[in-house]
């Protein structure tokens, strides 16, 4: 069964179905969405079951020729439909499936145009899955760009008062980042060959299935010494080939020998930074983060959940897979700067969170701070750090979903997100308060919950790294103090003391209702998931470990 293709195309088909369904069947939209996202959870579960965790390479590969175009002396252009997963993408696929389901269920109360909403939502689901399983840069970029479209409309049409501003900002910000990615993608394409197809084109073998290690070495040898006929060289977007330095054309734009430089800077380093900025917008990394608070504040609850729970992770995934994965030389050379940027993001986000009076903005900035740990972990170039970074992404995906759902619960009741509009909520809403406290403590890194493990191992990686000076990690540790400060201060201000709610201030007798059954069914499993991951971190590390170990080999020399 083509599991991964189903993961991508099932939601796309679902989106089409919702779009084509007549208006009279309006009540079906959400059920289709629930069915499709539930199927996604099952499909990703099947992928998990079939995944061999001891093996490091890509698995469940599906490949099909898509575009092949002879371009004369420029060689042959080849774009493949190529999908597969490894230990880095699988946890994120699983996370996405769960978060997308949570998002649908929390979309129950969405107002207006349900057809468009659920069609866009399913489109988003498909493109997100595509981002995590695509192994061809072109294919990835397609999904990456296409994801913006539904997101733009979901914020812009169903958002809060400043939704237009927020959605355009989000769109332009990400688009600016992806222009940089596009440039590097083209540069990479012109610099990398597909050794298998080239071997076929050069007549060394008859069909790709005859490929052996000797032929590969022969092709790469000929490539290195300029013995290949340019017309027979097949260029590729395949990440697997891009990740191998031996497939780079000498004297090409991004040649691993670094012959080309622009403005005195080697082109590979420029490309590294361009890619880094492109993905850092998504994560986000300070100072490229200012779209996030606006987008979160204006987005409806389910979209916030998806945004924080999944979309940010594409930034971190891009770091590991593309930025560091294809340019390990850049990662090693600028490790200190990048680690420092991570530490800065942690502290900057934390301090900003402390200053917020809007609950959603506070959580948005806490996301910024938590994503700083991802950068720190990746920049450390240690097994602990990179495993920790993936873990941190999964953990944050679960916890931030929970946090944004909790914000939505309150907003649904009072249409007021200001922290100082509430006091003593524990009395009328004990369940809500309890779950908020659980989410807050889990997010501030209470051992037993997942937040702790992610922070611990990224910090451990930071300390252990030969690339990063110790002070970077020491500064990052401040982040966990700040997290305790902003979460507990919020808890104190909103939930303790005598009950007072600004919305109901004139009518003190009106009670504010506690969680509904549906809200409980959303929040409690997420809390349990965070607890399970925190108690059994090997659930994630077992998946990531082998892949990360192989990934680390790039940095050995």
């Amino acid at each position: 069964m083509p599991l991964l293709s189903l993961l991508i195309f099932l939601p796309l088909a679902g989106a089409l179905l919702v779009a084509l369904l007549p208006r009279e069947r309006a009540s079906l939209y959400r059920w289709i969405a629930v069915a499709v996202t539930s199927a996604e959870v099952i499909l990703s579960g099947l992928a998990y079951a079939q995944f061999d965790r001891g093996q490091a390479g890509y698995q469940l590969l599906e490949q099909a020729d898509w575009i092949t175009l002879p371009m004369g002396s420029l060689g042959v252009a080849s774009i493949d439909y190529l999908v597969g997963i490894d230990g880095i993408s699988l946890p994120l696929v699983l996370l996405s499936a769960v978060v997308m389901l949570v998002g649908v269920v929390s979309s129950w109360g969405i107002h207006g145009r349900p057809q468009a909403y659920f069609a866009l939502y399913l489109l988003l689901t498909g493109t997100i899955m595509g981002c995590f399983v695509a192994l061809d840069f072109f294919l990835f970029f397609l999904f990456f760009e296409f994801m913006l479209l539904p997101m733009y409309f979901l914020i812009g049409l169903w958002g809060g008062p400043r939704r237009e501003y927020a959605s355009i900002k989000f769109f332009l910000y990400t688009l600016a980042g992806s222009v940089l990615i596009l440039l590097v993608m083209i540069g990479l394409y012109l610099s990398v060959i597909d050794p298998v197809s080239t071997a076929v084109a050069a007549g060394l073998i008859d069909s790709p299935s005859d490929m052996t290690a000797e032929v590969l070495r022969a092709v790469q040898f000929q490539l290195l010494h300029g013995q290949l006929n340019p017309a027979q060289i097949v260029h590729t977007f395949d990440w697997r080939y891009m990740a191998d330095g031996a497939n780079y054309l000498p004297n090409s734009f991004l040649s691993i020998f670094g012959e080309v430089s622009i403005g005195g800077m080697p082109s590979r380093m420029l490309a590294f930074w361009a890619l880094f900025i492109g993905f850092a917008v998504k994560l986000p990394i300070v100072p490229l983060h200012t779209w996030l608070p606006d987008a979160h504040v204006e987005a409806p609850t389910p979209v916030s959940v998806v945004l924080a729970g999944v979309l940010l992770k594409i930034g971190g995934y891009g770091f590991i897979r593309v930025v560091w994965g294809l340019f390990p030389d850049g990662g090693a050379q600028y490790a200190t700067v990048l680690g420092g940027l991570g530490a800065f993001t942690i502290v900057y986000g934390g301090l900003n969170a402390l200053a917020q009076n809007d609950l959603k903005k506070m959580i948005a900035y806490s996301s910024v701070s938590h994503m700083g740990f991802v950068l720190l972990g990746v920049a450390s170039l240690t097994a602990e750090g990179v495993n920790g970074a993936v873990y941190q992404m999964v953990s944050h995906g679960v916890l931030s979903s929970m946090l944004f759902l909790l914000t939505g619960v309150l907003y649904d009741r009072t249409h007021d997100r200001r922290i100082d509009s509430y006091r003593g909520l524990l009395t009328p809403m004990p369940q809500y308060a309890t779950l908020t406290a659980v989410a807050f403590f889990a997010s501030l890194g209470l051992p037993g919950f997942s937040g702790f493990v992610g922070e611990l191992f990224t910090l451990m990686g930071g300390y252990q790294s030969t690339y990063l000076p110790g002070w970077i990690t020491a500064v990052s540790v401040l982040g966990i103090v700040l997290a305790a400060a902003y979460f507990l201060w919020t808890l104190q201000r909103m939930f303790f003391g005598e009950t007072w709610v600004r919305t109901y201030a004139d009518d003190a007798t009106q009670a504010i209702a506690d969680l509904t059954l549906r809200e409980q069914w959303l929040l409690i499993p997420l809390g349990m998931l965070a607890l399970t991951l925190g108690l059994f971190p090997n659930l994630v590390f077992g998946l990531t470990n082998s892949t990360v170990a192989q990934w680390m080999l790039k940095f050995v020399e």
Partner: protein
Amino acid sequence: MPDSTQTLLLTCLLGLPFVGAIGLGVLKNRVPESVSGFLAVLLTAIGLFVSVVIAASVGEPLHWQTDWISFSGHTFPLSFQLDALSRLMLVVVHGVALLVQLYSIEYMRGDARIGPYFAYLQLFVGAMLGIVLAGNLLILYGFWELVGLASYLLIGFWYHRPSASRAATKAFLMNRIGDAAFLLGILLTYIQTGSVDFGTQPLTTAAGLCLFMGCVAKSAQFPLLTWLPDAMEGPTPVSALLHAATMVAAGIVLLARIHPMLSSDALTVVAAIGTATALWGGFSALFQLDIKRVLAFSTVSQLGLMVAAMGTGNVSGALFHLLTHACFKAGLFLAAGSIIHAVHTQDMRAMGGLRKALPYTFAAYVICAAALAGVPLLSGFLSKEVVLGGAVVWAAQRGGLAMLVPVGLLISSGLTAVYMARQLRLVFWGEPTDAEMIPHEPGWLMRGPVLLLAILSVGVWFSINPLSAHHSPFFAQMHLPVLPEGPVWLAPLSIALVLVGGWLGFRLREPATDSKLALASFHYGYLDQLYQRLFVNPTRALANFLHRADQRAVDGLVNGFGIGTVLLAHIAAFIDRIGVDGVVNGAGKLAVGVGQLTRSVQGGRVQTYIATAVAVVLFLLWWIL
């Protein structure tokens, strides 16, 4: 013991409190309040029974370990150990917790949230047991933070009171500062030794001090001591538990575990911090007006004593003092609870003359207070002698500034006698302030634990020799070396100090509450105000500044960039309209003009067509050129 038995015992010891916490938390108020209390007491009693059985069966230390997290080449096991220290603490924690829970059944009767209360207590106990049993630093840290959580929940238990929730937040945050350093210490340990096990070799001084910072926060050492007095906002039985057997004791347990990993420089710092804390706490206790605050600062001071003992290499002395202190301090807090229960105030100025109304409580309080002050024949005297003796021997080997440690500890000992005597005078002597109010002794559920703890504060349980603990069975049980005895003048000197201090505290007239000295003591050296100015306000100012900067500068740049682009687009559009389009329109107008001209001349229709054709040609010309 066979493996399965060990696993069973460990699961039982660690599992019961957590099962209790979850169970009671879920049950909440669905069961009658007496049932919650009964269940909690039952679970703790089972735990105590198991602990006593374990403690009685002297054996080799047990280790129990399983994989928890593993990477290529690195493993972080889930590891527990049962050694002499854990055996001791198991009994202490369970014992005190049991008494506190029994006491709570009566003390908290009628509270609306009795279910959660006992659930939190169980969590507190379970977390503390985890610390005691933890087999490596990482596991210890996990339970360490859980203790922080439990204390947060209990200190802020009466959440309606803003002061209570503030105190809870403060306690957790201040502990978090220490914990962050502690975590850093664990990471450094991992880097230096390749594992997170309790090492046997000294680490670098920096790593050792980072680990020690955990203890500084949890055990309320200088400079992170200001959360402890505020923690009084919790229900009084919680204070008893927190001050005697959990939370603050956790720091001492940690120090005992990491003692071999501390370099000699680090130990010197530990001794200095301990001494400073002992003095700071002693001074701050002098002029407090709240009955529980006096006890809180006495805890700070006594913890300083224990930490200083650790610093002087006297692990056994520190643990011995921890044990005796657990009994009399729990006794004092529970007795104070009985008093508060009876007079409905914590202000000692509103008490007075209670010795007649509360004879049992009075007797227990006097015994425990005397033990705390170090009166001979009581347990406190014995353990203080061991601590002080160790410090004197340690200082004598070093000379010079090291002498400040024993001198400081002796002074703080004297201060203890002063403030406890003052407290006894204010609470029990004199005349009742309110003649109409007749306080009553509480019921036996509260009286019993207090009396039992007072009895346990008598020295004979710890050492047959009433004046020296050196042959106490405690040290043999703990497999710890006892330091050489202090000089002969030490015992007479400390007895003299107790007498003088007690006399001063009892006889001295209270200075005006607004005198500089009293105020400085009352505000514990203005530490809170200092922190507010030095850390809290600047952090919030920085946060607000960064927030504004983020909105105006960083986001302003982004918006500016956006506006600039739009502006540029408008300029381009303008040029397009006026320049490029202008030419086109101009040509069109010209053609129309020409056409109208010809029409006006000849008035025929054909001319219009010609004009149109000319215009089109003109346009095409312009387009091509």
